[in-house]
């Protein structure tokens, strides 16, 4: 173990890692610098010329964030929608999958293994294939289920539902593998002491499962925040319910001639995932192994 660590931290490998990091960050840095340049300069010269002739402006940010109508960014309004869409779309599958994973891992019932395999298998259904049936369910109903026929802000419900449904197989699979790896002795000791399933779940399993829960939450958060397809199909595209990604996709104008807005728009959209990732980074790195090593 020590040998591996030493070899990985050798000077040569460190410098390779630094070079890769620089190469990967340079385009993003260019985008960031561009977002502070005036429109004419963005369109005529490269971002590196900024060092020769530093002209900084916040116009791009002002343009994409505020304003009214379709001709200005209004990302601020869409930003709120993104938050409203993302938080429940992370919490719903997290809670549901946590309970389901516990039941599948620690409660014995007939057909449990088949159910686990079934859920595992559901992961292979591509999201794109399910969009039209899902839309039909919302607009026309299915079997005994009535049509939803949502309008206005109620359409958030459709998006929450879709993201929850699409996330569950993976969430259950990830959490199940993690929970099944908890020491049997621990669970049994608690049971002997008279803990009910409820106590067990909240007092013993929840604290232990934290890394897995956090890593799933971060993955799901970034996925939902960056999602365009589901939002485009289900949100209706108006400033009432559409998230930032939908707005970003049309920010460049019908003929794409306003593309200077994308520089600032990209950073407004990226700031939240970056914040989430950096604030939860430690938990995330620990949770990456969640479910992968069955103990």
């Amino acid at each position: 173990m020590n040998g591996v660590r030493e070899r990985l931290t050798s000077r040569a490998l460190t410098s390779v890692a630094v070079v890769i990091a620089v190469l990967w960050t340079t385009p993003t840095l260019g985008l960031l610098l561009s977002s502070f340049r005036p429109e004419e300069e963005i369109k005529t010269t490269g971002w590196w010329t900024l060092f020769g002739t530093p002209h900084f402006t916040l116009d791009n940010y002002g343009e994409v964030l505020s304003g009214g109508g379709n001709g200005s960014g209004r990302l601020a309004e869409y930003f709120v929608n993104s938050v409203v869409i993302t938080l429940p779309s992370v919490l719903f599958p997290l809670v549901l999958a946590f309970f389901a994973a516990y039941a599948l891992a620690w409660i014995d019932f007939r057909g449990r293994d088949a159910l686990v395999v079934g859920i595992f298998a559901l992961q292979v259904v591509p999201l794109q294939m399910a969009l039209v049936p899902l839309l039909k369910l919302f607009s026309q109903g299915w079997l005994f289920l009535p049509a939803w026929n949502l309008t206005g802000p109620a359409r958030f419900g459709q998006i929450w539902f879709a993201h929850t449904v699409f996330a569950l197989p993976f969430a259950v699979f990830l959490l199940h593998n993690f929970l099944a790896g908890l020491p049997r002795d621990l669970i049994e000791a608690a049971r002997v002491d008279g803990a009910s399933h409820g106590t067990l779940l909240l007092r013993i399993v929840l604290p232990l499962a934290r890394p897995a829960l956090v890593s799933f939450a971060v993955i799901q958060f970034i996925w939902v925040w960056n999602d365009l397809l589901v939002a485009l199909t289900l949100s209706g595209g108006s400033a009432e319910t559409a998230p930032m990604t939908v707005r970003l996709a049309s920010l460049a104008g019908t003929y794409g001639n306003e593309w200077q807005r994308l520089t600032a728009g990209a950073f407004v959209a990226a700031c939240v995932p970056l914040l989430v990732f950096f604030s939860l980074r430690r938990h995330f790195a620990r949770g990456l192994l969640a479910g992968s090593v069955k103990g």
Partner: protein
Amino acid sequence: MRFGARLTLAVIALAALAAACGVPQDSGPQSHTAVDCGPYAKYGKHPGAKVTVYAENRDREADLFEETWADFSDCTGIDVQYEGDGEFEAQIQLRVDGGSAPDVAFFPQPGLLERFARVGKLKPASAGVVALAKQGWSADWNSYATVNGTLYGTPLVANVKSFVWYSPKFFRDRGLSVPRTWSELMAVTEKVAASGAKPWCAGIESAEATGWPVTDWIEDVLLRQQGTDVYDQWVAHEIPFDDPRVIKAMDTVGSILKNDRYANGGFGPARSMASISFQEAGTPILSGDCAMHRQASFYADMWPKGTEIGPDKDVYAFLLPGADPANRPVLGGGVFTAAFADRPEVRAYQEYLASADFANARMKKGPFVSANKGVDLANAATPVDRLSIQLLQDPRTQFRFDGSDLMPASVGAGTFWKGSVDWIGGASTRQVADSIERSWPSR
């Protein structure tokens, strides 16, 4: 505990951020000063009714549309909910299949409209719309929204693609005059090239649609060399894509676009156009590095801010000439409205869009071209719009729709575009035309 506290903090911070950003941005509807509802009385009153509209036009164009029908909305009580989406062509199919079609869609391609009409998803136009269509547009224009003899909608936007943009000052300084025939055009080209400047500039990069400006070039030249009949046969695939007459048109285009002496002004060798975005391709005209740029009327929106358009201003346009001045074919495109619902308010809204009143009101707001015979030239926002409308209203003009929009999508929005990129990159005309011909779907 530590973790819980941090998480709470993160959530609070997020919520605060959201609240801070989300506050008053609503500018609200512009306060309308006393609207004269007289002209809108014929559309009836539909209090509380709602019409959803789905289209490709977004940004400033979407604003102008919404401002235009604001009075209509106020007077009739119809709430028009407009949604502009860059993914229109893919998403409209998804929405229709999923049972949540919009009430009205603006189709940028007649082929797409035809597809939904054939499967019975579109509602045929009402008697009122049919009457307005007959009154407002030529038979040619109405035929693009007609499937199996049934009219489904009306043209909304028109654009003229056969324009050559140039700088009047550049021409004046060098003693050049606007060419009226193809040979005059080539004489101007040669004169500019002899002076050391490159006469033409072009750019064909346009994300997934890269290559389309070349297809327009080829269509325009074919239309001029062989006339409308051959053009129609070619588009309908009654003659093969690689017919010798088409090869000749392509070679003519190639003698300009693939010629390092003639192109690519301001950018470098001819093949550089593959990586130049079409939105920027004309800018060297302003700096005098390029003399001419063939691009549609909507290129007026793409000049850098502050560029003035007019016969004696920074830039202007002339119609790409034919063999003689009397031969004036015009290549163009258009957007068509069609409805997926036939509720009374949808009918009323469609009739309003089909009226010359709408086109005139829209033209007063900003650059816009309609092929409606009832539009008033005085309302044209720019000299190029005026020129476009004059051409469209002139009975001698032979208008033809952009062929790549009428061909099967796998060719018109697929192999034709990709083949054009290869062709600019150096592939031979024969090779490219043959491979596009082979890609034509068999029935």
